[in-house]
């Protein structure tokens, strides 16, 4: 089977403003793909275009092998979609919601639905409008996983939730997502880092990188070079070295294309008087912040 999500030069414009700019993206089957980026980076627009809520202004996208503009109820019955700002039928009780949605999905699993209701501790007889935000997200997730979708699309699902609810949701998701492809947008990097297999970084509508988590982590390193004297940054500063900072006799920067041999040679060439070179692995959050600040400075 082809990749469950594939975008080729996908663009979306709103009144002349490009929200998504020539996006090329592939999400392999079975992956948990995290699309990260700052607010306004174009994550939600990308997802809504993939779900055919928006029509692309240029390029194309395919979901489950079908052009997004042609997505039919057949494909939607295999996609579970949960969004932080989705308008739910608030007058429905949790029980009514599940019962109402069941006939839409031939593969609906009552036992699975009941299991999630129990696990999420969902009050069946309470109306959605009377549920807390966390409970609403749980209800939305339960109603989107009970038919074992092939593709689960989550748009900022953990935004504004307390850590306990977040953990419950992630656990619930991971338990039931086995075999499914998950596409999740978030700026909540700490959680993403713990379970995403792939990551893409979107900024200003452009995808700056898209790769496996392990590869990404190995590409980014925080470098600290200790010198004999106060440093002067070389004029020919490599583009891949981000966020250079200097203090007394130390230079710090982020190498975004780190390679053990090549990078160390390059550092020694740039700083022949280096007394010490420290190479530190970076958590996703730090990588994200470094990238975001670099982009902001460049803008």
């Amino acid at each position: 089977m082809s990749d469950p999500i594939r975008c080729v030069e996908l663009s979306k414009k709103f009144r002349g403003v490009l929200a998504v700019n020539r996006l090329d993206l592939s999400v392999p089957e079975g992956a948990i793909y995290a699309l990260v980026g700052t607010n306004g980076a174009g994550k939600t627009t990308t997802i809504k275009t993939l779900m055919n809520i928006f029509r692309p202004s240029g390029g194309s996208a395919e979901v489950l092998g079908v052009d997004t503009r042609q997505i039919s109820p057949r494909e939607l019955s295999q996609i579970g979609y949960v969004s932080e700002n989705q308008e739910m039928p608030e007058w429905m009780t949790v029980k009514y919601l599940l019962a109402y949605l069941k006939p839409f999905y031939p593969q609906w699993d009552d036992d699975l639905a009941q299991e999630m209701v129990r696990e999420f501790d969902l009050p069946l007889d309470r109306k959605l409008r009377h549920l807390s935000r966390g409970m609403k997200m749980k209800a939305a997730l339960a109603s989107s996983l009970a038919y074992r979708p092939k593709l689960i699309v989550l748009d900022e699902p953990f935004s504004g939730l307390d850590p306990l609810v977040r953990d419950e949701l992630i656990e619930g998701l991971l338990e039931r997502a086995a075999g499914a492809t998950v596409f999740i947008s978030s700026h909540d990097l700490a959680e993403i880092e713990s379970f995403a297999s792939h990551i893409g970084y979107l900024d200003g509508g452009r995808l700056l990188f898209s790769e496996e988590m392990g590869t990404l982590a190995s590409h980014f390193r925080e470098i600290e070079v200790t010198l004999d004297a106060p440093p002067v940054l070389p004029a020919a500063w490599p583009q891949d070295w981000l966020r250079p900072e200097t203090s007394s006799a130390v230079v710090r920067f982020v190498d975004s294309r780190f390679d053990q041999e090549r990078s160390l040679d390059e550092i020694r060439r740039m700083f022949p008087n280096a007394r010490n070179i420290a190479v530190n692995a970076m958590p996703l959050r730090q990588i994200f912040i470094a990238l975001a600040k670099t982009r902001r400075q460049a803008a």
Partner: protein
Amino acid sequence: MKQAMHIFRKDVSHLWPQIAIVLMLVAAFTVSNIQSSRPAGSEHPELRWLAGLLGVLVPVGYAWLIVTLVHQEPLPGDRQFWLTRPYRRGSLLVAKVLFVLLFVSATMVAKDCFIVAGRGFPVIPNITGLLLRQFAWTAWVVLPALAVGVVTHNLQDVGLVGALVGLVYALQGALVRKSFWPGIEWVRDYFGMLLLLTLCAAIVLWQYLRRETGKARVAVAFCSILVIVGLPLLSWNAAFTVQMLARGPRLDLAKVQIRPNLASVRSAVPAAEISQAPIAIALPLRLTGLPSGMMIVPDGTNVAIASGQRVIWRSGWQQNWYGMRTEQYHSQVVYIDIGIYRSLQNQPVTIRLSLGLTLLENGTPSHVPAHQERFAFGGSRCEELSPEIYPPPISCLAALKSPPRTLVALEAPGAAESISQTGTWSYAPYEALLDQSPLAATSLAILQLQDSPVDSRALWERPDAQIVLTPQRPVAHFRRDLEFPGVRLVDYVLPPGQAILRAVP
């Protein structure tokens, strides 16, 4: 269909309070109409007031129910849960249509049938009119409500659309002069009905199948402007052409001749007395070839005044208000601008007169004792409201269609008759299409006619007096163009308050 039924059941289970409110309004309206819309004043006058109020609340209630229904799955926006669920758009639309058919259209039909039957009129013979009435209400209430529903997200949005439509309506009232066309107003109404039906249905379909809210909103705005501003701009001439096509002549009209008859009358009005604007000019005519039992009525006139070959002034089409005796069509009154009159009054000019005419065929007369309180006439039930006063107000009530155009005469053995024309002036196939009630109420007037030699009051007071009601049926609509050369306007001007010119010895 299975999915449509599933969505339909969900809507019914959620909207039952709204359904109940609307059904209560409809039931109250039905009862109040059966009780109060009597031809001759109600024994429950307070119910007439209530019926009026409910008459406004019922269509508003229907519209509210429809937009609330559509808003269960709002079409504009990008956050609705149903957009990412396997809804089939066709099923969604079918579910909404089913709901509207059951809780709006069917209840409308039931309401009308109950009112018609409750007032003692038969339902089956009126079924065509009742169905046409549903068609009209679908065009003017149901589909516009659906169209507004599909481009809005909530009732606040609907309020905004309502305010904008109200603004367009107010601007139209201020900027566009709309005149009422007695005979052919129905053409404008029916045209508006077809326009709304087509445009609103297209908007609803488009939005459900394509969900392109921006374009659909533009279409709603265009449709509103077209109907509110465009319809009043429809020309009388075009409407009369539609009327001519709608009722092709069933007789040879070539024999019906109308010619200028300038020698027959002259005005005796001193020029100094003419000060009113516009100036009424009576152009003398000779009518020949009219089949017996028929009458001719001018519906509209168009006058051009020319000097030599040069046209100096045109009136445009003016609708006739039938304010004269038309049973003897020997002159046609036209109105001209006072400035034009003053500048041309003594100079010979050519008047070109275009006429839009209708032939009426007299039916079988009905004789009713003049002081009978209640009587039936032409499918209507009539009632003299106050037989002791003169002229007696007579009110008639019918299902869907007013009594036909009727010649009303007073007769008594050995006495002359006094004639007026009354009943509906409309040539519409059905009239009470958009009224709150399916019942059409009309007043039959018995008037002391101007210029009549008969004292109709004295005639009325005789105990053996009879009202003679002769229904008239339009059988043909046609045009005639006449030219009146060498006319001095001053010779044909009508004195103020006078309807015809008399021959000057």
